[in-house]
């Protein structure tokens, strides 16, 4: 499993005669999340395409925005769906309209922002 981690420190502007100090606590609403897949046959693919990718996180992530990206060969983005996590911290992003062949998916990314 690979995760790209980037942390940006909070910027603090200090005036000539004023001094401020503080720190930003970097937290996450939950340590992990899972993504599953639902598929359906499509004659236009043809083959099985991904319909939904149910996301399960935690109630502490409730109401936060999410974005799921399905990636293929060379880490190219095949499709993205975004939305808001429900009261349980779950969601069911719908990729049906994108007609992504299940066979072409090699990775999935999830971003939760709150």
């Amino acid at each position: 499993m690979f995760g790209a981690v980037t942390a940006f420190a909070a910027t603090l502007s200090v005036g000539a005669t004023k001094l401020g100090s503080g720190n930003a606590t970097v937290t996450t609403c939950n340590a992990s999340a899972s993504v599953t897949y639902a598929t359906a046959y499509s004659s236009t693919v043809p083959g099985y395409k991904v319909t939904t990718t149910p996301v399960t996180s935690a109630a502490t992530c409730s109401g936060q925005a999410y974005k799921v990206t399905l990636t293929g060969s060379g880490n190219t983005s095949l499709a993205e769906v975004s939305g808001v996590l429900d009261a349980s911290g779950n969601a069911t992003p719908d990729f049906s309209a994108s007609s992504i062949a299940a066979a072409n998916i090699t990775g999935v990314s999830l971003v939760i922002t709150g």
Partner: protein
Amino acid sequence: MMNAGRKAAAVGALTLFALAAPSTAWGQGVANAPAKVSSAWTAVSTCGSLSGLGLSWTSTANVVTAVTLTTIPAACSGGSLSLTLVGAGNAALGSAGPVSVSGTSQTLSTITGSPTSTSVTGAYVSVVGP
């Protein structure tokens, strides 16, 4: 026997990493509650190639009533398998599943759509998990 395609997708479990979103504090203000951002990527692994599946069927009065799959990758055991029989133009004629994969050979005895055996030109298989 007919080769069936395609493919298995596994459940992705992601470990979330916390990111601090860019935040700006002006003057004496201090950004002590930046937006929380969690991000993770995971590979979608496959339980094995399904392109080499063996497929045969039983028909009654020219209607497919059961489909037997062989050479299912052992790693797919416990996954959720769906099958679609197709005809001309890849039109779906009938389907089975989802069912739990229980071994390297499996018979699907509930086929919807009453597909005419002489019209079937191919089959597509999907396994999600395990």
